[in-house]
């Protein structure tokens, strides 16, 4: 069953990228995306499963809804080296990639007061890809980390003005990491690349459970308030490592390297990640044509202190990558103008604080505070709804030297990043 679920998730979900702070993703529906995710107190479409499942309870008059879509993400990041390593004057760019984390939601009323919801969504994702010969290749050339959630929910309207939603999160995650292995060549007393390490998981067995709950209250005069909590999810990974030897041009050295690295074998390893919990609270006002929504969120990123790679049979390859994340706040503001029965326009802006200290920025992830502006439109025709959205994301330019002592991995520099995001979702009502 687990294999099957994994397969389903992988088929549904394709590579994604960190475009919330840390490696969180919030792109679970285009309309909420176009309102900058200020949706906890709105929660009136199927993306409520992520933002506030209580909102499902107030959607029972819409019948059964199926929403699906994807948000395309086109990131750009340039690294500028600083002393002592890789040094002033060095710069490199990430390779072009386009990610499209999809979402699928099903909302189905079970009775007058109860609504069932089910979603497949991508709450976390990370994808960075640098040139093979970039100066940080011993830390990462390419990494992909995906977390796919299968999320059943139940929402109940406790009365006409208050609803409660609860749900479970079954999370399946995969990690792929490729990087080079350095050796201080004793013949030349200079650093050489002697191998490539490919560390990966196959998805099966790399899973964990979490839960979430939300409250949505209609306060009167068009005001509503929402509160959501999503729990930590700890995923234990069982993975593998493969090494590919690079010739140094010195047969004697290559032979000795081959004696010390198990080329041709697949060695087993483990790691674990505790994905952070997430508090969201917000207030919204909805009039006949306008909705204004504001919210605050806090992600408990302090759960992510290290990424420990353990190879029981080859302890010489064990490694603890320091992360030292801190809890991070985010603020979102969204608007919607329902211009007509068939057309609505959305706007939004957000500030998303990074949980990553400058000292732990690496080619795996060089993060920064994010500021975004968003916009979108919805076209409604009968039982069909099309949402289109766009986001321009600006990330703070940060240096590893913003922390005293600089980079923990000795890879100093600053990262300049931005991204353009565009999304589309379709909703069918039955």
């Amino acid at each position, binding site marked *: 069953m687990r294999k099957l679920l994994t397969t389903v998730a992988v088929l549904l979900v394709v590579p994604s990228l960190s475009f919330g702070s840390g490696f969180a993703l919030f792109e679970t529906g285009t309309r909420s995306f176009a309102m900058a995710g200020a949706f906890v107190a709105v929660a009136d479409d199927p993306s409520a499963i992520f933002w506030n499942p209580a909102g499902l309870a107030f959607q029972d008059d819409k019948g059964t809804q199926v929403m699906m879509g994807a948000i395309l993400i086109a990131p750009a990041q340039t690294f500028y080296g600083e002393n002592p390593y890789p040094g002033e004057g060095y710069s490199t760019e990430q390779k072009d990639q386009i990610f499209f984390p999809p979402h699928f939601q099903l909302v189905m009323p079970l009775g007058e007061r109860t609504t069932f919801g089910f979603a497949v969504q991508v709450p976390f994702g990370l994808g960075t890809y640098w040139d093979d010969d970039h100066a940080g290749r011993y830390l990462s050339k390419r990494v992909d980390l995906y977390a796919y959630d299968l999320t059943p929910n139940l929402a109940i309207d406790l009365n006409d003005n208050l609803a409660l939603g609860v749900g479970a999160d079954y999370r399946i995650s995969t990690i792929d990491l490729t990087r080079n292995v350095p050796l*201080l060549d004793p013949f030349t*007393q200079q650093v050489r690349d002697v191998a490539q390490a490919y560390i990966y998981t196959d998805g099966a067995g790399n899973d964990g459970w979490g839960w979430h709950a939300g409250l949505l209250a209609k306060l009167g005069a068009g005001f509503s308030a929402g509160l959501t909590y999503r729990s930590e999810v700890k995923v234990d990974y069982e993975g593998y490592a493969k090494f590919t030897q690079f010739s140094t041009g010195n047969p004697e050295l290559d032979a000795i390297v081959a004696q010390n690295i198990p080329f041709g074998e697949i060695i087993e390893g483990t790691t674990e990640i505790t994905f952070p919990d997430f508090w969201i609270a917000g207030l919204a006002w909805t009039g006949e044509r306008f909705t204004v929504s504001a919210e605050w969120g806090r992600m408990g990123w302090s759960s992510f202190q290290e990424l420990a790679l353990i190879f029981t049979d080859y302890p010489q390859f064990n490694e603890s990558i320091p992360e030292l994340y801190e809890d991070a706040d985010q603020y979102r503001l969204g608007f919607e103008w329902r211009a007509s029965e068939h057309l609505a326009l959305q706007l939004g802006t957000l500030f998303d604080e990074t949980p990553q200290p400058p000292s732990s920025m690496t080619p795996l992830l060089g993060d920064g505070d994010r500021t975004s502006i968003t916009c979108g439109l919805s076209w409604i025709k009968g039982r069909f709804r099309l949402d289109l959205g766009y986001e321009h994301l600006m990330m703070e330019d940060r240096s590893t030297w913003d922390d005293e002592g600089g980079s923990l991995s000795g890879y100093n520099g600053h990262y300049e990043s931005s991204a353009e995001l565009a999304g589309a979702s379709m909703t069918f009502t039955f």
Partner: protein
Amino acid sequence: MKKIVLAVSVVALLGALPASAQLDLSRYVALGDSLTAGFTSNGLVDCYQMHSYPAVLASQAGAATFEMPLMSPPGIPPVLELVSLAGGVPTLVPAGNPADAFPYNAAYPLPYNDLGVPGATLYDMLFTTGDINNVLSGNTDNAMHDLILRVPQVPNPVTGEPMDFTAIVQAIALDPTFITLWIGNMDVQGAVTSATPIDGVTMTPVSMFEMLYPQAVGALVQSTDADIVLFTLPDLTAEPFVRTVPPFLDIPGLGVVPIMGSNGPLDANCLVTLLASSKLAQGYGVPLPGYPPLPEDVNLATGEPGYVLRPEEVTAIQERIDTLNAIIVQTADAFGLPVFDVGGVIDGLLDHGIVLGGVHLDGSYLTGGIISYDGVHPQQLAHALLAMYLVDFLNATYDADITPINLGEILFDNPCYPLGGAYGVAAKDVVFSPEATQSFLDLFMPELPRMPRHDQQVEAATD
């Protein structure tokens, strides 16, 4: 033999320039020993010298002139290189014929800015002179001082009387604007090289160091207007020279057994020198009848070094270094000078190392990237790191603006390759050739025939 006559200017002894408000490295003088000279892999050769910490610092500071006593390849003595990996055992020998090496700029008309003299003790810095004509005539007894100091005496600019042109006098003669002083390593290194700490023989007595060090610093303070930085000493027992060869042998049929030393079986806390590997290969230390024990202590009659430091000897050496460091700090306090704790920097590099973009450098012999093939001296990467920490220290201490160090190139480019090489997987079995061993001992063993040298030195120092 062609005589070389140097027109050395000592006018600066009379007229000192006003102190600069900012750190001025336009006339930078580095005083010290082999560590300051850029001595690497048991040799002094131009490519390593030009990447030594004083040279890097001078370059970063934009000093127009930083003259060094550059030696041609294969170096003086020739630097070590790999000649065999047979059986996975690296063998190190001198890279060439000593007669092929020569000083490039022995006729330079002023004292060198880098006055680090390999093998020099504090006493040597104050009282030992050199004569380039002596070494050019084939007498290598005092080769390093001869090559670097070159002129034994000059007229005293005040009295006209001949005066010894020692390292410290040459430093003063340059009218320096900035001086780094890293002296004292060789006042203890003999105890490590010979694996025998003997006060007054392999280690300079504390009383002498306590007397001479403030004298040296006082002379620099009173005779120059330079900014002066004093350097501490590292833990010399942390060198790969004594941290590579284990105190046990793995003998087929017997398994892992302690090496039999001349004072009994070694325990796990004993340190064995790199030079012991040649003796072990000859059967010394095998704990079986018919095999000679590994000599632990120096033979005062033959001059053969010992090969084992017992834990109490390690402690004695470490305590001596602590004591000398305390004297250095006290002297700095007395003269109001800053102290760069380079000893602490090296201790950290050897103990836990440093990571640069996923590349781990540490004190591992041959593959650690910090210490060169002789197991004692930093190599070019370590010199760059020392310069990096020194630049940070100077910028912070003097509110200076010296360009920080960029390690992006040096990490992947050894300026001296392919002069030497070895591989460290079987580093514990490394073999120094007899020539390499003798070359090393010539420089870093105490001068036993002159014992008890320190009495003469005290006498000379108090005259």
